[in-house]
Protein backbone atom coordinates (compact mmCIF):
# COMPACT_ATOMS: atom_id res chain seq x y z
CA UNK A 1 0.00 0.00 0.00
CA UNK A 2 1.24 3.49 -0.87
CA UNK A 3 2.15 5.92 1.89
CA UNK A 4 -0.05 8.99 1.98
CA UNK A 5 1.35 12.45 2.64
CA UNK A 6 -0.74 15.53 3.40
CA UNK A 7 0.92 18.50 1.70
CA UNK A 8 -0.16 22.09 2.31
CA UNK A 9 1.72 24.73 0.34
CA UNK A 10 0.30 27.86 -1.30
CA UNK A 11 3.05 28.44 -3.86
CA UNK A 12 2.00 26.57 -6.99
CA UNK A 13 5.44 25.69 -8.31
CA UNK A 14 6.70 24.62 -4.90
CA UNK A 15 3.62 22.49 -4.25
CA UNK A 16 3.87 20.84 -7.66
CA UNK A 17 7.60 20.23 -7.19
CA UNK A 18 7.06 18.58 -3.82
CA UNK A 19 4.20 16.54 -5.25
CA UNK A 20 6.48 15.43 -8.08
CA UNK A 21 9.21 14.41 -5.63
CA UNK A 22 6.88 12.53 -3.32
CA UNK A 23 5.15 10.71 -6.16
CA UNK A 24 8.50 9.71 -7.64
CA UNK A 25 9.19 8.08 -4.30
CA UNK A 26 5.98 6.05 -4.45
CA UNK A 27 3.98 8.22 -2.13
CA UNK A 28 0.41 9.28 -2.59
CA UNK A 29 -0.13 13.00 -2.09
CA UNK A 30 -3.17 14.88 -0.87
CA UNK A 31 -2.38 18.50 -1.45
CA UNK A 32 -4.01 21.81 -0.55
CA UNK A 33 -3.06 25.37 -1.31
CA UNK A 34 -4.69 26.98 1.71
CA UNK A 35 -4.95 26.23 5.41
CA UNK A 36 -8.73 26.25 5.67
CA UNK A 37 -9.22 23.44 3.09
CA UNK A 38 -6.53 21.40 4.84
CA UNK A 39 -8.21 21.80 8.23
CA UNK A 40 -11.56 20.76 6.75
CA UNK A 41 -9.90 17.68 5.27
CA UNK A 42 -8.28 16.79 8.60
CA UNK A 43 -11.61 17.07 10.42
CA UNK A 44 -13.42 14.72 8.09
CA UNK A 45 -10.88 12.19 6.81
CA UNK A 46 -8.70 9.37 8.10
CA UNK A 47 -5.10 10.37 8.81
CA UNK A 48 -2.25 10.43 6.32
CA UNK A 49 1.13 8.95 7.33
CA UNK A 50 2.87 12.33 7.38
CA UNK A 51 2.00 16.02 7.10
CA UNK A 52 4.17 18.48 5.23
CA UNK A 53 3.07 22.02 6.05
CA UNK A 54 4.16 25.42 4.87
CA UNK A 55 4.15 28.00 7.66
CA UNK A 56 2.53 30.90 5.88
CA UNK A 57 -0.67 30.06 4.10
CA UNK A 58 -3.87 31.87 3.18
CA UNK A 59 -6.90 31.68 5.54
CA UNK A 60 -5.23 29.46 8.15
CA UNK A 61 -1.48 29.29 8.62
CA UNK A 62 0.76 26.31 9.37
CA UNK A 63 0.56 26.88 13.14
CA UNK A 64 -3.22 26.68 13.06
CA UNK A 65 -3.14 23.47 11.02
CA UNK A 66 -0.63 22.07 13.48
CA UNK A 67 -2.97 22.89 16.40
CA UNK A 68 -5.83 21.21 14.54
CA UNK A 69 -3.70 18.10 13.96
CA UNK A 70 -2.85 17.87 17.64
CA UNK A 71 -6.52 18.29 18.59
CA UNK A 72 -7.62 15.43 16.35
CA UNK A 73 -7.50 11.96 17.93
CA UNK A 74 -6.72 10.20 14.68
CA UNK A 75 -4.18 12.71 13.31
CA UNK A 76 -2.53 13.61 16.60
CA UNK A 77 0.41 11.23 16.32
CA UNK A 78 1.36 11.59 12.69
CA UNK A 79 4.79 13.15 12.13
CA UNK A 80 4.67 16.75 10.98
CA UNK A 81 7.39 18.41 8.95
CA UNK A 82 7.25 22.16 8.44
CA UNK A 83 8.44 23.97 5.31
CA UNK A 84 10.12 27.24 6.29
CA UNK A 85 12.27 30.06 5.03
CA UNK A 86 15.93 29.72 6.01
CA UNK A 87 15.73 32.59 8.53
CA UNK A 88 12.61 31.45 10.37
CA UNK A 89 14.30 30.64 13.70
CA UNK A 90 11.58 32.07 15.97
CA UNK A 91 8.79 30.59 13.90
CA UNK A 92 10.36 27.15 14.12
CA UNK A 93 10.71 27.46 17.86
CA UNK A 94 6.98 28.13 18.00
CA UNK A 95 6.24 25.24 15.63
CA UNK A 96 8.28 22.83 17.77
CA UNK A 97 6.42 24.00 20.87
CA UNK A 98 3.17 23.20 19.08
CA UNK A 99 4.37 19.69 18.30
CA UNK A 100 6.16 19.83 14.92
CA UNK A 101 8.72 17.06 14.48
CA UNK A 102 11.11 18.53 11.94
CA UNK A 103 11.46 21.18 9.27
CA UNK A 104 12.85 21.60 5.79
CA UNK A 105 14.25 24.91 4.66
CA UNK A 106 13.55 26.79 1.46
CA UNK A 107 15.33 26.73 -0.94
CA UNK A 108 14.96 22.99 -0.73
CA UNK A 109 17.48 20.25 -1.29
CA UNK A 110 15.36 17.56 -2.93
CA UNK A 111 17.45 14.62 -1.73
CA UNK A 112 17.55 15.83 1.87
CA UNK A 113 13.83 16.52 1.79
CA UNK A 114 13.02 12.98 0.73
CA UNK A 115 15.55 11.53 3.20
CA UNK A 116 13.93 13.43 6.09
CA UNK A 117 10.45 12.38 5.10
CA UNK A 118 11.54 8.76 4.74
CA UNK A 119 13.19 8.86 8.16
CA UNK A 120 9.83 9.61 9.77
CA UNK A 121 7.92 7.14 7.67
CA UNK A 122 10.32 4.34 8.59
CA UNK A 123 10.17 5.27 12.27
CA UNK A 124 6.40 5.24 12.20
CA UNK A 125 5.89 2.06 10.14
Amino acid sequence: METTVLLVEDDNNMRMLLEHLLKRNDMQVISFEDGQSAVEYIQTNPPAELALLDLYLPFKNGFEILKELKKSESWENIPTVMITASDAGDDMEKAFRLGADDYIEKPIDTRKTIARINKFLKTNS
Partner: protein
Amino acid sequence: MTTISQIISLIPAYLRFAIFIGMLIVAVSLTVLLIALQLQKKRSRHQKLHKKTIKIYRPLLFQWLSGETPELPKPTADLEPYLLELWNDLYEKVEETERLRLREAAKKIKLNEIAHRYLDGKKLELKILAIITLGALKDKSTVKEMLELCNSDRPLVRLQAIRALLGPAPKKALKYIFDDVLKNPERPVNYYLKYCREVDRKLLTDYLLKRLKQTPEEKLAQLLPFLEAADNTAGADYLRQHLQTWQNEETLARGLRVLRRVGRPQDEEIVLEFLSHPTYFVRIQAARVLGELGSRQSLDALLETLGDGDWWVRTRAAEALANLPAVSMEELENRAETLNDKFARDALYKALELKVKK
Protein backbone atom coordinates in the same frame (compact mmCIF):
# COMPACT_ATOMS: atom_id res chain seq x y z
CA MET B 1 -33.99 74.23 -46.60
CA THR B 2 -33.59 73.92 -42.90
CA THR B 3 -29.99 73.45 -41.93
CA ILE B 4 -28.74 71.51 -38.92
CA SER B 5 -27.67 74.74 -37.24
CA GLN B 6 -31.19 76.10 -37.64
CA ILE B 7 -32.62 72.97 -36.01
CA ILE B 8 -30.14 73.25 -33.18
CA SER B 9 -31.01 76.91 -32.66
CA LEU B 10 -34.64 75.85 -32.20
CA ILE B 11 -33.68 73.64 -29.24
CA PRO B 12 -33.68 75.51 -25.93
CA ALA B 13 -30.22 76.14 -24.45
CA TYR B 14 -30.78 73.94 -21.36
CA LEU B 15 -31.81 71.02 -23.58
CA ARG B 16 -28.75 71.52 -25.80
CA PHE B 17 -26.55 71.42 -22.73
CA ALA B 18 -28.27 68.22 -21.50
CA ILE B 19 -27.79 66.56 -24.91
CA PHE B 20 -24.12 67.58 -24.92
CA ILE B 21 -23.60 66.10 -21.43
CA GLY B 22 -25.46 62.93 -22.43
CA MET B 23 -23.26 62.49 -25.50
CA LEU B 24 -20.15 63.12 -23.43
CA ILE B 25 -21.20 60.43 -20.94
CA VAL B 26 -21.84 57.97 -23.77
CA ALA B 27 -18.42 58.74 -25.30
CA VAL B 28 -16.57 58.36 -21.99
CA SER B 29 -18.45 55.12 -21.18
CA LEU B 30 -17.61 53.69 -24.60
CA THR B 31 -13.94 54.59 -24.18
CA VAL B 32 -13.81 52.99 -20.72
CA LEU B 33 -15.54 49.90 -22.08
CA LEU B 34 -13.08 49.64 -24.94
CA ILE B 35 -10.08 50.00 -22.57
CA ALA B 36 -11.55 47.37 -20.23
CA LEU B 37 -12.08 44.99 -23.15
CA GLN B 38 -8.52 45.52 -24.32
CA LEU B 39 -7.18 44.86 -20.83
CA GLN B 40 -9.33 41.76 -20.48
CA LYS B 41 -8.06 40.51 -23.84
CA LYS B 42 -4.49 41.17 -22.80
CA ARG B 43 -5.00 39.44 -19.44
CA SER B 44 -6.59 36.36 -20.95
CA ARG B 45 -3.76 36.13 -23.52
CA HIS B 46 -1.25 36.41 -20.67
CA GLN B 47 -3.03 33.65 -18.72
CA LYS B 48 -3.24 31.45 -21.78
CA LEU B 49 0.49 31.77 -22.54
CA HIS B 50 1.40 31.32 -18.87
CA LYS B 51 -0.67 28.13 -18.65
CA LYS B 52 0.77 26.83 -21.91
CA THR B 53 4.34 27.37 -20.67
CA ILE B 54 3.59 25.66 -17.37
CA LYS B 55 1.97 22.74 -19.15
CA ILE B 56 4.89 22.18 -21.53
CA TYR B 57 7.94 23.08 -19.46
CA ARG B 58 7.19 22.52 -15.78
CA PRO B 59 7.03 18.69 -15.90
CA LEU B 60 10.17 18.65 -18.06
CA LEU B 61 12.09 20.95 -15.70
CA PHE B 62 10.95 18.82 -12.75
CA GLN B 63 12.47 15.84 -14.54
CA TRP B 64 15.72 17.76 -14.97
CA LEU B 65 15.62 18.57 -11.25
CA SER B 66 15.36 14.86 -10.51
CA GLY B 67 18.46 14.10 -12.57
CA GLU B 68 16.80 13.05 -15.84
CA THR B 69 17.59 14.87 -19.07
CA PRO B 70 14.46 14.92 -21.28
CA GLU B 71 14.46 16.87 -24.54
CA LEU B 72 13.33 20.47 -24.06
CA PRO B 73 11.48 22.02 -27.02
CA LYS B 74 12.70 25.39 -28.25
CA PRO B 75 10.19 27.98 -27.01
CA THR B 76 8.23 30.11 -29.44
CA ALA B 77 8.80 33.85 -29.12
CA ASP B 78 5.54 34.45 -27.24
CA LEU B 79 6.39 31.79 -24.63
CA GLU B 80 9.92 33.09 -23.95
CA PRO B 81 9.11 35.58 -21.14
CA TYR B 82 6.95 32.99 -19.40
CA LEU B 83 9.69 30.40 -19.64
CA LEU B 84 12.19 32.86 -18.14
CA GLU B 85 9.75 33.47 -15.29
CA LEU B 86 9.16 29.76 -14.65
CA TRP B 87 12.84 28.86 -14.83
CA ASN B 88 13.77 31.62 -12.37
CA ASP B 89 10.98 30.73 -9.98
CA LEU B 90 12.13 27.11 -9.85
CA TYR B 91 15.77 28.20 -9.56
CA GLU B 92 14.96 30.24 -6.44
CA LYS B 93 13.19 27.28 -4.85
CA VAL B 94 15.99 24.72 -4.94
CA GLU B 95 19.49 24.27 -3.57
CA GLU B 96 22.79 24.35 -5.45
CA THR B 97 22.85 20.71 -6.71
CA GLU B 98 19.48 21.16 -8.33
CA ARG B 99 20.41 24.64 -9.55
CA LEU B 100 23.27 23.09 -11.43
CA ARG B 101 20.81 20.79 -13.17
CA LEU B 102 18.58 23.73 -14.04
CA ARG B 103 21.58 25.55 -15.51
CA GLU B 104 22.26 22.48 -17.65
CA ALA B 105 18.66 22.49 -18.82
CA ALA B 106 18.98 26.21 -19.60
CA LYS B 107 21.97 25.51 -21.84
CA LYS B 108 19.88 23.08 -23.89
CA ILE B 109 17.26 25.73 -24.72
CA LYS B 110 19.84 28.54 -24.95
CA LEU B 111 18.14 30.50 -22.19
CA ASN B 112 21.07 32.93 -22.07
CA GLU B 113 20.36 34.01 -25.66
CA ILE B 114 16.71 34.52 -24.83
CA ALA B 115 17.62 36.59 -21.76
CA HIS B 116 20.07 38.65 -23.81
CA ARG B 117 17.30 39.63 -26.20
CA TYR B 118 15.23 41.09 -23.36
CA LEU B 119 18.15 42.90 -21.77
CA ASP B 120 17.85 45.86 -24.14
CA GLY B 121 14.06 45.85 -24.19
CA LYS B 122 11.89 48.71 -23.01
CA LYS B 123 9.78 46.73 -20.56
CA LEU B 124 11.32 47.07 -17.10
CA GLU B 125 9.83 43.82 -15.80
CA LEU B 126 11.34 41.79 -18.64
CA LYS B 127 14.67 43.58 -18.41
CA ILE B 128 14.94 42.68 -14.73
CA LEU B 129 13.93 39.08 -15.43
CA ALA B 130 16.66 38.94 -18.08
CA ILE B 131 19.28 40.34 -15.66
CA ILE B 132 18.28 37.85 -12.94
CA THR B 133 18.45 34.96 -15.42
CA LEU B 134 21.89 35.90 -16.72
CA GLY B 135 23.13 36.24 -13.14
CA ALA B 136 21.76 32.82 -12.22
CA LEU B 137 23.37 31.32 -15.32
CA LYS B 138 26.71 32.80 -14.21
CA ASP B 139 27.25 33.83 -17.79
CA LYS B 140 30.72 35.40 -18.05
CA SER B 141 29.96 36.98 -21.41
CA THR B 142 27.58 39.42 -19.74
CA VAL B 143 30.05 40.96 -17.27
CA LYS B 144 30.60 44.12 -19.33
CA GLU B 145 26.89 44.69 -19.82
CA MET B 146 26.17 44.06 -16.14
CA LEU B 147 28.85 46.54 -15.09
CA GLU B 148 27.14 49.16 -17.26
CA LEU B 149 23.75 48.31 -15.79
CA CYS B 150 25.23 48.68 -12.29
CA ASN B 151 25.23 52.42 -13.01
CA SER B 152 21.64 52.53 -14.19
CA ASP B 153 19.41 55.37 -12.96
CA ARG B 154 16.77 52.80 -12.07
CA PRO B 155 17.50 51.44 -8.58
CA LEU B 156 15.85 48.08 -9.32
CA VAL B 157 17.95 47.53 -12.42
CA ARG B 158 21.09 48.63 -10.57
CA LEU B 159 20.50 46.26 -7.63
CA GLN B 160 19.68 43.27 -9.81
CA ALA B 161 22.69 43.93 -12.05
CA ILE B 162 25.00 43.95 -9.01
CA ARG B 163 23.47 40.70 -7.81
CA ALA B 164 23.78 39.20 -11.29
CA LEU B 165 27.44 40.18 -11.39
CA LEU B 166 28.14 38.22 -8.18
CA GLY B 167 27.84 34.94 -10.08
CA PRO B 168 30.28 35.41 -12.98
CA ALA B 169 32.51 38.14 -11.45
CA PRO B 170 32.16 38.19 -7.65
CA LYS B 171 35.22 40.37 -6.98
CA LYS B 172 34.04 43.04 -9.42
CA ALA B 173 30.60 42.97 -7.80
CA LEU B 174 32.04 43.23 -4.29
CA LYS B 175 34.23 46.14 -5.37
CA TYR B 176 31.17 47.87 -6.75
CA ILE B 177 29.15 47.21 -3.57
CA PHE B 178 31.82 48.47 -1.18
CA ASP B 179 32.61 51.54 -3.32
CA ASP B 180 28.90 52.36 -3.46
CA VAL B 181 28.43 51.92 0.30
CA LEU B 182 31.41 54.15 1.05
CA LYS B 183 30.27 56.80 -1.42
CA ASN B 184 26.64 56.77 -0.27
CA PRO B 185 26.53 56.17 3.49
CA GLU B 186 22.82 57.07 3.59
CA ARG B 187 21.84 54.04 1.48
CA PRO B 188 20.67 51.04 3.52
CA VAL B 189 23.07 48.10 3.25
CA ASN B 190 20.48 45.35 3.83
CA TYR B 191 20.13 44.38 0.17
CA TYR B 192 23.87 44.32 -0.34
CA LEU B 193 24.34 42.28 2.82
CA LYS B 194 21.81 39.75 1.56
CA TYR B 195 23.62 39.53 -1.78
CA CYS B 196 26.99 39.12 -0.06
CA ARG B 197 25.65 36.06 1.74
CA GLU B 198 25.34 34.44 -1.70
CA VAL B 199 29.08 34.83 -2.40
CA ASP B 200 31.69 32.23 -1.51
CA ARG B 201 32.43 32.99 2.16
CA LYS B 202 36.20 32.78 1.91
CA LEU B 203 36.33 35.04 -1.11
CA LEU B 204 34.11 37.59 0.63
CA THR B 205 36.13 37.43 3.86
CA ASP B 206 39.49 37.91 2.13
CA TYR B 207 38.27 40.77 -0.02
CA LEU B 208 36.43 42.48 2.83
CA LEU B 209 39.41 42.31 5.20
CA LYS B 210 41.56 43.84 2.46
CA ARG B 211 39.09 46.69 1.96
CA LEU B 212 38.77 47.28 5.71
CA LYS B 213 42.53 47.67 5.89
CA GLN B 214 42.47 50.32 3.15
CA THR B 215 39.54 52.28 4.59
CA PRO B 216 40.04 55.22 6.98
CA GLU B 217 38.65 54.70 10.46
CA GLU B 218 35.90 57.32 10.17
CA LYS B 219 34.41 55.48 7.18
CA LEU B 220 34.72 51.94 8.53
CA ALA B 221 31.21 51.96 10.03
CA GLN B 222 29.80 51.59 6.50
CA LEU B 223 31.77 48.42 5.78
CA LEU B 224 31.64 46.69 9.17
CA PRO B 225 28.10 45.22 8.74
CA PHE B 226 29.49 43.05 5.94
CA LEU B 227 31.50 41.11 8.53
CA GLU B 228 28.18 39.45 9.37
CA ALA B 229 28.21 37.74 5.98
CA ALA B 230 31.91 36.84 6.22
CA ASP B 231 33.56 34.01 8.06
CA ASN B 232 32.54 34.40 11.74
CA THR B 233 35.95 33.59 13.20
CA ALA B 234 37.75 36.03 10.91
CA GLY B 235 35.13 38.70 11.58
CA ALA B 236 35.34 38.32 15.36
CA ASP B 237 39.16 38.26 15.23
CA TYR B 238 39.19 41.49 13.26
CA LEU B 239 36.88 43.21 15.76
CA ARG B 240 38.86 41.94 18.75
CA GLN B 241 42.04 43.40 17.29
CA HIS B 242 40.55 46.79 16.48
CA LEU B 243 37.78 47.67 18.92
CA GLN B 244 40.16 48.99 21.56
CA THR B 245 42.14 51.07 19.08
CA TRP B 246 39.25 52.91 17.38
CA GLN B 247 38.52 56.49 18.42
CA ASN B 248 35.61 57.16 16.09
CA GLU B 249 32.33 56.63 18.00
CA GLU B 250 30.24 55.58 14.98
CA THR B 251 32.83 52.97 14.08
CA LEU B 252 33.00 51.71 17.65
CA ALA B 253 29.22 51.44 17.99
CA ARG B 254 28.92 49.64 14.65
CA GLY B 255 31.78 47.32 15.56
CA LEU B 256 30.06 46.36 18.81
CA ARG B 257 26.80 45.84 16.99
CA VAL B 258 28.47 43.39 14.61
CA LEU B 259 30.28 41.68 17.48
CA ARG B 260 26.86 40.90 18.98
CA ARG B 261 26.25 38.64 15.99
CA VAL B 262 29.71 37.20 15.33
CA GLY B 263 31.37 37.32 18.77
CA ARG B 264 31.92 34.64 21.39
CA PRO B 265 31.56 34.63 25.21
CA GLN B 266 35.31 35.29 25.51
CA ASP B 267 34.70 38.78 24.08
CA GLU B 268 32.81 39.77 27.22
CA GLU B 269 35.84 41.30 28.86
CA ILE B 270 36.64 43.59 25.92
CA VAL B 271 33.02 44.74 25.77
CA LEU B 272 32.63 45.42 29.50
CA GLU B 273 34.92 48.44 29.37
CA PHE B 274 32.68 50.12 26.78
CA LEU B 275 29.86 50.31 29.32
CA SER B 276 31.59 53.39 30.68
CA HIS B 277 32.35 54.99 27.28
CA PRO B 278 31.54 58.74 27.21
CA THR B 279 29.21 58.36 24.20
CA TYR B 280 25.72 57.02 24.97
CA PHE B 281 25.25 55.03 21.73
CA VAL B 282 28.49 53.16 22.32
CA ARG B 283 27.26 52.25 25.84
CA ILE B 284 23.93 51.09 24.34
CA GLN B 285 25.68 48.74 21.93
CA ALA B 286 27.99 47.43 24.68
CA ALA B 287 24.96 46.57 26.84
CA ARG B 288 23.29 44.82 23.93
CA VAL B 289 26.39 42.69 23.23
CA LEU B 290 26.55 41.66 26.88
CA GLY B 291 22.91 40.62 26.72
CA GLU B 292 23.91 38.14 24.00
CA LEU B 293 27.38 37.04 25.05
CA GLY B 294 27.61 37.95 28.73
CA SER B 295 28.04 35.63 31.70
CA ARG B 296 27.76 36.17 35.50
CA GLN B 297 30.82 38.38 35.12
CA SER B 298 28.65 41.04 33.48
CA LEU B 299 26.01 41.04 36.21
CA ASP B 300 27.43 43.74 38.50
CA ALA B 301 28.58 45.98 35.63
CA LEU B 302 25.14 45.86 34.02
CA LEU B 303 23.40 46.49 37.37
CA GLU B 304 25.59 49.54 37.76
CA THR B 305 24.70 50.67 34.21
CA LEU B 306 21.03 50.70 35.29
CA GLY B 307 21.95 54.00 36.95
CA ASP B 308 23.19 55.52 33.67
CA GLY B 309 22.05 59.07 32.96
CA ASP B 310 20.62 58.07 29.57
CA TRP B 311 17.22 56.37 29.42
CA TRP B 312 18.14 54.20 26.39
CA VAL B 313 21.30 52.91 28.08
CA ARG B 314 19.34 52.01 31.24
CA THR B 315 16.70 50.23 29.16
CA ARG B 316 19.25 48.24 27.13
CA ALA B 317 21.18 47.34 30.28
CA ALA B 318 17.95 46.07 31.89
CA GLU B 319 17.13 44.02 28.76
CA ALA B 320 20.67 42.61 28.76
CA LEU B 321 20.29 41.60 32.41
CA ALA B 322 17.00 39.87 31.67
CA ASN B 323 18.74 38.00 28.82
CA LEU B 324 21.83 36.84 30.76
CA PRO B 325 21.60 33.06 30.57
CA ALA B 326 23.67 32.44 33.71
CA VAL B 327 21.42 34.51 35.96
CA SER B 328 17.95 33.36 37.05
CA MET B 329 14.85 35.55 37.02
CA GLU B 330 14.51 35.01 40.75
CA GLU B 331 18.00 36.32 41.43
CA LEU B 332 17.34 39.36 39.25
CA GLU B 333 14.09 40.07 41.07
CA ASN B 334 15.92 39.90 44.38
CA ARG B 335 18.63 42.23 43.11
CA ALA B 336 15.99 44.63 41.76
CA GLU B 337 14.47 44.91 45.24
CA THR B 338 17.81 46.01 46.69
CA LEU B 339 18.34 48.81 44.13
CA ASN B 340 18.04 52.26 45.68
CA ASP B 341 17.70 54.10 42.38
CA LYS B 342 13.99 54.14 41.49
CA PHE B 343 14.68 54.52 37.71
CA ALA B 344 17.10 51.59 37.75
CA ARG B 345 14.59 49.41 39.63
CA ASP B 346 11.75 50.31 37.25
CA ALA B 347 13.86 49.62 34.16
CA LEU B 348 14.79 46.16 35.44
CA TYR B 349 11.25 45.25 36.52
CA LYS B 350 9.96 46.32 33.11
CA ALA B 351 12.55 44.21 31.26
CA LEU B 352 11.77 41.18 33.43
CA GLU B 353 8.05 41.65 32.81
CA LEU B 354 8.64 41.79 29.05
CA LYS B 355 10.72 38.62 29.19
CA VAL B 356 7.97 36.74 31.04
CA LYS B 357 5.40 37.89 28.45
CA LYS B 358 7.66 36.72 25.63
